[in-house]
């Protein structure tokens, strides 16, 4: 791993009551990589994700992002520093149109959200252009006037990805982007995630269950099991790791690799 570290989580611990959902886990996400976080149900993947994205704060440990300690930084401020995030169930504004959903993010990034007047002229044109660009990127231009609540699950997720891109992040955190999707929809999202790096040059850190997707996309894989770090390495190394095999992967999955 020669690329510089973009996000580094050191000894993250988070307990709920007596249960240590995440127990002294350290992960470094390098710039320009697609990094996957996998593990069986209840391994603490989402808890770990919440701790690094500021949805909750860790009990112990340190998070640095772009060289700055952000362990106790409020989540909205992390976004302004260049983090973007999606959730397991698409987190969107269901009663607004696709266009308005994305526009909110673009306006927020352009520091127009607090205004009492909608800016005109060049500022408005810049916002329109950026909305069009994002709609094109996730291929939702045809549905732009539809309410998000009316969209298929996969399209809602694409809308959410476009929203997380609207704030122009350098790192995108995706929490189970394929959860509940059909094969065809999964392929669309896989293509978009690949484009995040190839076309936009972003770093992606994602939680996923679908091993086919993880092995196809990731440069690097971190495995959690019962709150602890079990293994980390390239897809080949993880697929060959006996501990991972026992804890998580069915042997038939490995044979296909």
């Amino acid at each position, binding site marked *: 791993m020669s690329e510089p570290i973009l996000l580094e989580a050191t000894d993250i611990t988070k307990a709920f009551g007596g249960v240590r959902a995440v127990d002294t886990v350290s992960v470094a996400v390098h710039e320009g990589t697609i990094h996957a976080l996998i593990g069986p149900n209840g391994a603490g993947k989402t808890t770990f994700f919440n701790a690094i*994205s500021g*949805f909750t704060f860790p009990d112990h440990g340190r998070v640095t992002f772009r060289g700055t300690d952000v362990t106790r930084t*409020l*989540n*909205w*401020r992390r*976004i*302004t520093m260049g983090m*973007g*995030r999606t*959730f397991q169930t698409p*987190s*969107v*504004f*269901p*009663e*607004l*149109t696709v*266009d*308005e959903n994305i526009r*909110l*993010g673009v*306006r*927020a*990034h352009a520091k*127009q*959200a*607090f*205004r*009492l*007047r*909608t800016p005109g002229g060049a500022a408005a044109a810049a916002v329109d252009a950026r909305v069009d660009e994002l709609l094109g990127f996730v291929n939702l231009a045809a549905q732009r*006037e*539809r*309410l998000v609540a009316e969209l298929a699950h996969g399209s809602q997720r694409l809308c959410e990805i476009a*929203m*997380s891109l*609207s*704030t122009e992040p350098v790192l995108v955190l995706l929490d189970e982007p394929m959860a509940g999707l059909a094969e065809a929809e999964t392929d669309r999202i896989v293509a978009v995630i690949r484009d995040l790096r190839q076309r936009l040059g972003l770093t992606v850190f994602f939680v996923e269950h679908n091993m086919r997707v993880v092995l196809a996309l990731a440069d690097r894989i971190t495995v959690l099991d019962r709150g602890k770090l079990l293994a980390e390495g390239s897809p080949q190394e993880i697929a060959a790791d006996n501990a991972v095999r026992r804890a998580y992967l069915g042997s038939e999955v490995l044979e296909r690799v």
Partner: protein
Amino acid sequence: MRARRELAVFILAVVLLACGPLISPLVHLDISILSEVLVTTLAVLSVNLLLGYTGLPAFGNAAYFGLGAYGAALSVTYLHVDFVTAVLAGAAAAVAGALILGPFLLRRRGIYFGLLSIAFGEIFYFIAYRYTDVTGGEDGMNFPRPPFGPGLAHVAIHETQFYYIALVVFAVAMIAFRVVVRSPFGRTLIAIRQNEARVRYLGLDTDRFIFVALLISALLAGVSGALFGLLINFAYPLELDWHQSGNFVLMMILGGAGTIWGSLIGALIYVIGKDIISTITPLWQIFLGALFVACVLGFPRGIVGSLGALRRRRPVDPEDPVSSEAFDAGAPVEVGRGV
């Protein structure tokens, strides 16, 4: 197209309301009841901004309403100010109250925001109730309606003049309210109602938006309370009580949460309904309660909200320019809640 229709509706409504003093004798309605409708609408708008648009249970807005009434009453009684200054004093008292309470309310959401709002309102209620030397305690404060003020120092305000003053304030408030809810700021408030976590994950400090919404809400409630006090020449502790807050919420739901005109319709039905039914039977609250239950069961979006939804129910073909224009005009702009 849509903006022009809205402007037409607005002008029509203001012209109709301007004819109020001519119409009211024909239907045996006191003009001061119509003034009360306009004044109350401002308080309903203040609840609507927090509850209908931003999704915060504003169950304590009577605190700002009462602060407005007492601000006017105290300034007239002890400082002998004119009408305009009394209204400004009431508004300032309410905004000052929100500035003090805001930081405590800001981090609370959902039912905790609602309960804390009620609790703070009760604090003001008991201050007014107990601080008898200044506020008159349970008996309240009687005070004369002062002359208008700047440039018109000797012009007395009778009921008809009061009505037109209230109408001007109402019209300004409606325009300002529309500007706020249609602005990028207002869009963000609506987004907070739908999904606050996502708004934060767009890099926005939602607490800041909510604090400003609270101040605007308090300003509206304060002006409403001050005008109400000046209308009835009286300020009393029950104006600060949570029953009063509940009435504003009820009127908002009756008219339609998240709709501008719903606030007027809700206040109109409640205030006039109360006036008419209470002359027939002392059990008027039973009838208003029944109306409220019927409304929640039959029209959960309120009267204006349900009308808006009805208009939008026609099937929409996005390829068809005519119907897709209807679609543009309907759903997205008012967030599926009517006009």
